[in-house]
């Protein structure tokens, strides 16, 4: 174990722990833009700088391994000034777009500008213009808002194993884009969108939907495959407007395209909204009241049971529906109708 002191608090950590991780264990808040605990450290944004006794200059805590007897300071007038300058530089060519940006209120850059009180910009200069429309249906790229943290490139490579995006150009003209600046053509998992700290990457389906006001968050489980990813449903009134996932979930916040972007079936206009009955064989399905529908089901099923016995009836339950529904459904067939003719469709 390694013993070190951070802001006068001492802590023991296993070898290989970075100074940033040690500080987080002590609940000390160090600002970061390019760090994500699920990815390898990168050291690009320089916001996580700290002072270490014996070191000539501040160093980035996310890439510095903790060493025995280190004495670390995470806050000082110098560090504050350096961080503020970094933020000012980032904002100097950032479109002043927060009013209409989909990430407003949920943007690391905006929060840092607020915390470090960056109002006017000493470095204002040319704005980049990288924007070109990307025709893919899921991911909105707004590269003028990119801070080159590299999180999207790294998650796509390290976690998703796809490598659909990379860097092109250097310095002021640098940007993140798919190879040869084509439209994205990838797995559309949206991992990159979920790690982007600014409005540079967002969901196309999120555009124009409420951001904070009236938005309700509900933790739930994905309805698609057996991975059972934990998701958070963002809803406004009776509409689903976004799906996200928490880092702390068993799926670590990662989702696939179906779980992240495949939610709009719920609010489709062709949902069934009223019971339907075929009043005579060969006739059409017509709207009916619930009472009429329930009565019809009970009468017809009871009639079949009476005439042909309970085994002339069967139920097919659903591998898509809840445990509680499935439990009650099979109980209905077994205990009320009196048959074991009950199965579900997907026997795998």
């Amino acid at each position, binding site marked *: 174990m390694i013993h070190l002191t951070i802001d006068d608090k001492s802590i023991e950590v296993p070898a290989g722990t970075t100074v940033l991780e040690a500080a987080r264990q002590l609940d000390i808040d160090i600002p970061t833009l390019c760090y994500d605990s699920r990815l390898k450290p990168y050291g690009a944004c320089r916001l996580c700088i700290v002072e270490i006794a014996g070191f000539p200059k501040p160093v980035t805590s996310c890439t510095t391994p903790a060493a025995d007897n280190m004495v670390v300071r995470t806050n000082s007038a110098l560090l504050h000034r350096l961080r503020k300058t970094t933020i000012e530089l980032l904002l100097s060519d950032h479109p002043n777009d927060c009013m209409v940006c989909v990430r407003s209120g949920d943007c690391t850059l905006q929060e840092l500008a607020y915390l470090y009180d960056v109002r006017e910009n000493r470095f204002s200069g040319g704005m980049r213009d990288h924007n070109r429309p990307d025709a893919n249906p899921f991911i909105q790229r707004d590269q003028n808002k990119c801070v080159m943290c590299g999180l999207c490139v790294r998650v796509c490579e390290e*976690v998703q*194993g796809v490598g659909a995006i990379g860097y092109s150009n250097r310095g002021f003209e640098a940007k993140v884009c798919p190879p040869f600046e084509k439209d994205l053509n990838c797995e559309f*998992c949206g991992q990159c969108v979920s790690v982007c700290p600014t409005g540079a990457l967002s969901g196309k389906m999120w555009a124009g939907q409420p951001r904070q006001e009236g938005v309700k968050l*509900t933790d*739930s*489980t994905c*309805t*698609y*495959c*057996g*991975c059972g990813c934990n998701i958070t*449903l963002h*809803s406004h009134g009776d509409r689903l407007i976004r799906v996200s996932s928490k880092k702390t979930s068993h799926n670590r916040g990662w989702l696939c*395209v*179906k779980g992240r*972007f*495949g939610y*709009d*079936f719920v609010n*489709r206009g*062709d949902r*069934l*909204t009223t*019971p*339907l*009955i*075929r009043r005579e064989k060969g006739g059409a*399905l017509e709207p009916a009241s619930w009472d009429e*529908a*329930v009565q*019809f089901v009970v009468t*017809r*099923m*009871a009639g*079949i049971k009476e005439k042909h016995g309970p*085994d*002339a*009836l*069967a139920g097919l339950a*659903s591998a*898509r*529906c*809840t*445990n509680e*529904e*499935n*439990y*009650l459904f*099979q109980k*209905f067939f077994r205990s*009320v109708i*009196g048959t*074991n*003719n*009950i*199965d*579900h*469709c*997907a026997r*795998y």
Partner: protein
Amino acid sequence: MAGLAAKFGSGAMTNSVAEIAENDALLVIGSNTTENHPIIGLRMKEAVAKGARLIVADPRRIPLVKFATLWLRQKPGTDAVLLNAIMHVILEEGLEDRDFITRRTEAFEEFEASLAPFTAEFGAEATGVPAEDIRKAARIFGSAVNAGIYYAMGITQHSMGTNNVHAVGNLAMLTGNVGKRAAGVNPLRGQNNVQGACDMGCLPNVYPGYQSVAIPGMQQKFEAAWGGTLSGKPGLPATEMTGAMLAGSLKGMYVFGENPALSDPNTSHSLKAFKNLEFLVVQDIFLTETAELADVVLPGSSFAEKNGTFTSSERRIQRVRQAIASPGEARNDLAIIDQIYRSFAAGSVAEYRLPDAAAVFEEAASLWPEIAGVNYQRLDKDSICWPCPAPDHPGTPFLFKAMFSREGGRALFTAVPQVLSDELPDEQYPFVLTTGRELFHYHTGTMTRRSAGLNAVAPEAFVEINPVDADGLGVHSGESLRVTSRRGMIDLKARVSGIVPPQVVFIPFHYREAAANLLTNDAMDPVCRIMEAKVCAVRIEKNMS
């Protein structure tokens, strides 16, 4: 999962998903994991990044092949022979775990004898995989400390699916890779709550918790809990229901949240069967192909409109929570079933009410000891993997640590003979058709094809065909092909690709306008009654019309 239950006493994934990253070796067979179980796929990639060796056995060059140490391209339908040959080499080279075999298994001698003919050369002949690769696979798997096996419909949806599952289990037992961390035999469940539907007793032969309807003690237990008398006669499995509908012995059906008219193999057959019913009720959120045939359609709720639980592939019970209200007069599914239940019992329409999902779960938990420790208070804090027999039990990431759930506590070796697919290619139908899923769609597409984005990136059905065969037919990507089997015919666009080997074509089954299941075979596995949806023989022609 009859195969696994017979060997171990339970048919679920033996190990949890997080443990995958700790595997030294992985064998993925019959599972296109990155497309069908993407997040489980991420754990596999993580294991590889940490240095694990990955063996992929699949006729198609699935995306996971890119991460594999070794890719075995067996001919469709020869999985069990491939596994037998791998095990033959493991024994030949002394890579088996004798200690595990002695302490924890039974019937090894007969099994060992049954492997004698399956030499690497014999395996190569039958499967098309080079003998040297079979040996390599045996060495990789046999020498790993922690080796896990992952499989899905690709090996179970065959007329010999149960045999395949037995073979997979044998391999884990032979090498001592079950009953410990970061190993095991892991069937990946297709739909979100297949595990839960089975757990809750939506199976014709067992009550909730796999308690057999044919055991009088179980019957009495459930009669005491539910009241009334229960039938001790096992019911019809879904795949036999079609025949019973056609024969007229099955007259009324209640289909809840599924679309069997499109998802069943040999669809034209099953459509005819549903039309033959005297009475059909369908409860769903869309007017599916099955609902269109119904006498009554009950509008239910989507997952975002209800409270309850799903159980994932790794036996993890998790909360589903209501976020929004259902549209129009659509109602909560649990309440619909509850009202019909009470109305049927009373003989007249009972008052509508919303039952408490937590109480329904509690009732199920009181009848199945393996989840006796699970309740909504706990689930609201964190999900739990069953078995969880007591309120202070943390849940179980991997099964069979001390013993197997079979009588006697040992795992059973099973000899697996070579069985041929029910329908092999011949002169008239020279191609092998396999079906499956693609990343952007799910099942019959009821939900995903209504998602604007998903439908935009994957708008239409296609048939994957090898460049060699495409050349032979003079067809290019995007041109229309007619695919004909003994049961039906569909037209769809060609996608010329080396993903499939020559003489094999692949069609995803999500598309109603070109339903792959019109072609597939409804020959059944004799034990677990799964249709042979994976392999059938077809003829391919350039579509001139």
